[in-house]
């Protein structure tokens, strides 16, 4: 029997770039689990997650964080959330270190099966943008209103950026996490980089 091993590759090779005083990096260590629920079991799900993780269910356009800061829930649709966490062995930032891995099985048991889980970790590629050039760059490609009054810290939006479906999350002040479908990762990177380049003097 031949020793066969599989290598995991980042969709964008862990790219890291600077534009002016802003930074763009690929976040490679995210675990993403889609959580869908029947409307009549929504409260049950909410309660279960609250008890086990200190996680509230987010309102439309919002995200919530677990009490230990390791897991976020993004509102994706009226009956769908996206759980976002750093992997155990990840080097991605944004969450507290030593995050417990959130696999589908774990989520299922945490919520006492009040929901349906689908792993989405490989469906999306993730870019983190931070710095003063970020908003001017996003203005070039993102139709959402990202003004403080409309998109405060914690907000989550789903929209289309250069023909690509994108989830955008404001992590803090000038820092944003963008998710887009993994097969078009390079086109997505190109769109973001072109925007940053176009506004960097």
């Amino acid at each position: 029997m031949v020793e066969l091993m599989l290598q995991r590759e980042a969709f964008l090779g862990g790219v890291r770039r600077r534009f002016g005083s802003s930074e763009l990096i690929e976040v490679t260590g995210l675990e993403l689990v889609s959580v869908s629920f029947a409307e009549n079991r929504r409260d049950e799900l909410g309660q279960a997650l609250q008890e086990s993780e200190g996680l509230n269910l987010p309102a439309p356009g919002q995200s919530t964080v677990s009490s230990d800061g390791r897991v976020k829930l993004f509102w994706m649709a009226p009956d769908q959330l996206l759980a976002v966490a750093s992997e155990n062995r990840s080097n991605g930032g944004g969450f507290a270190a030593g995050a417990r891995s959130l696999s589908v099985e774990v989520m299922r048991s945490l919520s006492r099966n009040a929901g349906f889980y689908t792993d989405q970790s490989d469906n999306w590629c993730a870019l983190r943008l931070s710095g003063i050039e970020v908003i001017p760059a996003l203005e070039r490609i993102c139709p959402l209103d990202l003004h403080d009054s409309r998109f405060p810290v914690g907000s989550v939006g789903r929209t289309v950026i250069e023909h690509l479906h994108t989830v955008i999350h404001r992590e803090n002040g000038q820092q944003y996490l963008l998710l887009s479908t993994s097969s078009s990762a390079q086109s997505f990177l190109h769109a973001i980089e072109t925007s940053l380049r176009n506004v960097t003097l």
Partner: protein
Amino acid sequence: MSRQFRIGGGLVDPGRIVSFSFDGKSMQGLHGDTLASALLANGRRLVARSFKYHRPRGILSDGSDEPNALVELRSGAHREPNTRATVVELFDGLEAYSQNFRLSLNNDLNAVNDLLSPFLSAGFYYKTFMWPQKFWERVYEPLIRSTAGLGSLSALPDPDCYDKGFLHCDLLVVGGGPAGLVVALVAGRAGARVILADEDYRLGGRLNCESNSIGDQSGAAWAHQAALELALMDNVRLMPRTTVYGCYDHGIFGAVERKTDHLASSKRLPRQVLWRIYSRRSVICAGATERSMAFANNDRPGIMLASAVRTYCNRYGVACGQNVAVFTCNNSGWRTAADLERRGIRVAAVIDTRAETDAAPNVDARIIRQGRIVNTYGRKALSSIRLEDGERLPVDCLAVSGGWNPNLQLTCHHRSKPQWNAELATFVPGDSLPAGMAVAGAAAGVFHLGEILKDAAVVASTVLDELDLGEVDLQLEEAADTPYRIEPLWHIKSRRRAWVDFQNDVTTKDIEQSHAEGMQAVEHLKRYTTLGMATDQGKAGNIPAIAIMADLSGKSIPDTGTTVYRPPYTPVAIGAFAGRSRGPAFRPVRKTPSHRWAKEHGAVFVEVGAWLRAQWYARPGESHWRQSVDREVKATRNSVGVCDVTTLGKIDIQGAGSTTLLNHVYTNGFSKLAVGKVRYGLMLREDGIAYDDGTTARLGENHYVMTTTTANAGLVFRQMEFVRQCLYPDLDVHIISTTDGWAQFSVAGPNSRRLLQKVVDPETDISNRRFPFMGCAEITICGGFPARLFRISFSGELAYEIAVPARYGNSMMETLIKAGEEFEAVPYGTEALGVMRVEKGHFAGNEMTGQTTALNLGASRMLSTKKDFQGSVLARRSHLVDDNALGLVGLRSRDKKDVLRAGAHLLRQGVEPTLENSEGWISSCVYSPTFGCYLGLGFINRGHDRFGETAVAVNPIHKSEVSVTICSPHFYDPDGGRQRG
């Protein structure tokens, strides 16, 4: 620089000299000049030749309404024709060229057209160039092409890049003149999110051009101060050099911002940005534009708009002439005389058409009341004018004021019509404006500066109220102004030509001719004479033309009406609309997880929608694609092949209602599909036409994974969400796309099981007994990596599809080929995939054309009679279940050497090859290395009953007629023994 024309003062910087060239001649200007003001400062009068008659033309105006002074800027690939010299910001090294002449601007050979003018009047092209017919292509068309148009393109790709963007605001203020500045100040101070856009590089509008004061400041100084205050507000975004060109639905506006046109080099930054501005409210403060009057030979270089003459004097410190006359029918023209006199420029006379001129400013110049100009002289530069009484007055510049037109275009982009204001003798915005829009200042027909400031403050207050923002008390200073009085004079009748549309060379004679020939409605007038159809969109000429037509028709001006206003307000470069959609960035590219491996191994890629898929893998020595494809087919059928099939849609379906959903979208039943099994499903559209197909695997009690075709992945998902949310709103079922998340590979061939046994962890027994055909399971491979295995076959061989999380995809391809080395495993692409599926007789996209039914495809037995499903009822429409209906068949050339092609028609033997005799067509065709000949799938009437018959495949394009045998489409292993083994 000519001392005689540079009089100093204004808003230009005498300390910063700018060098530029015009028609190759070096000249100098000052920082702050436009190309037009610099040309005038250098005494340049002749700057262009008119469109049709090639008459010498000079600068007419001072803004984006300029019809004459169109130049070509820059050189090489950056060359841009038809640029208005009046809005070009002068920069060091600017190169400009006049256009539309043959030989030279000064000696234009095409000026002969002017002599031919009687033959070139309105609609001449409908009446000429018709005989003899053969002259059209050889003589007339090339001649017209060489003379038509203004300016020429470089024909090189545009080297600049452009960008687009999205902006949100509470209030969009269009125009940064006195009204716009007041509105922005009020709204800005109240905390509204404001965007203030102006075409000019400097805010202030006409305050920068007139000699009015606001309080004890000059208008220009007041504007400068207001702009500074606005620039310091975080909630206000100032956008100079930005034209708001269109008003769209729901407060959306289109604007183009010129980022680098005023610089010598764009330094690779986007030259222009096309903005989509979302506003809750908008105030149009676009000001007004002056119009001329139509009189004999009113188009000579040196005849300018009166307001422009004083702009050049006040803002640019340039005298447009040394002996200037004013010709006006209203009070505002007098301001030019007053301003020029104050700066020491000689005013020969103020010729007013009216009898009474009270409230006009005081001037020293000679005043001629009830004056009419009947002719002008000086072909390349105005030298004199003749008055009605015969007097000939030497002048080198004539400042004409026919009145002012509010710039109300944006208010009419939603098809509202403006209304006629008789007192102002112009059109003002109509009653029904686009939602959320208000108008203030001159654009609303308020022409007195003091009134403009007050009007703007009131409008701003109302808007703030509507936005639920607090009140702001703006301390407005007093501003004096000349009261506006006008007695419109549209044209002075003459047997000589009098111009109405300068750019398209349309005269009053053309309007008269249009009227005489029955083209009296304004929309007909426009198209018959081409009036208003030039790049200036009739800003100068439309209203006089309407007035003249009204006069001819005996109708009032409001009854004659205006033509429809459409975006863009001024021309926008196509590059700006394209933005980044050029070249490879035109649209996103989707790559499969094994793309890199494929590229490294000789893959040639094909576009399948947005995806790039390996079409075949060329080995060294293979020079023709058939060599690769034939090899891949043979190797797969003989041993094993691996193909990346990630692109097929994958939809994860969970919930107690999953089976119900599947039963609704698929024609066949899924209630009895056991866990661990896969079933093929057919999907129809609601109208009964075959839509999509795929396999659905049941991984758990309430968990399925459905596959779709690559092309329809998004559409099927959309349809399923429709079924879920709209037809079964209470069903407990949830779907999500996992197409990108799983890298999926087809492993096919007699050695496929052996290959996979090296990869699949020993816990999973994939022997034929334990893992039979159409089975599925969640497994682990390579020592614990998660994977899914499906035993399905598209090729007809023993085959599986194995899926791993996408980030392992590239590595998985490598691993499978490595594990397959002992079996000489080959990677295969979409061509080999296609050959094998045709050999097996599976229908695919070529057969599901959007017009074929399950019956046509030979899949009638898949239509359940026991349940409802999408398309169930309409599929049974009589004409779809007709006895003569098309049936899917296999086709084989009778002579192995014959080439068959998809698209060929199928006809009975011995009939004439006409369309009427066509009974079907070949939908898919491949060369089969397995059978050593061409094989086709196709449709023919009553196909199922005609196996064994000989037909003829007729291909008129390739001029071939090939005898074919009609047979079952399942050429290869029709009993399915190989895939079940």
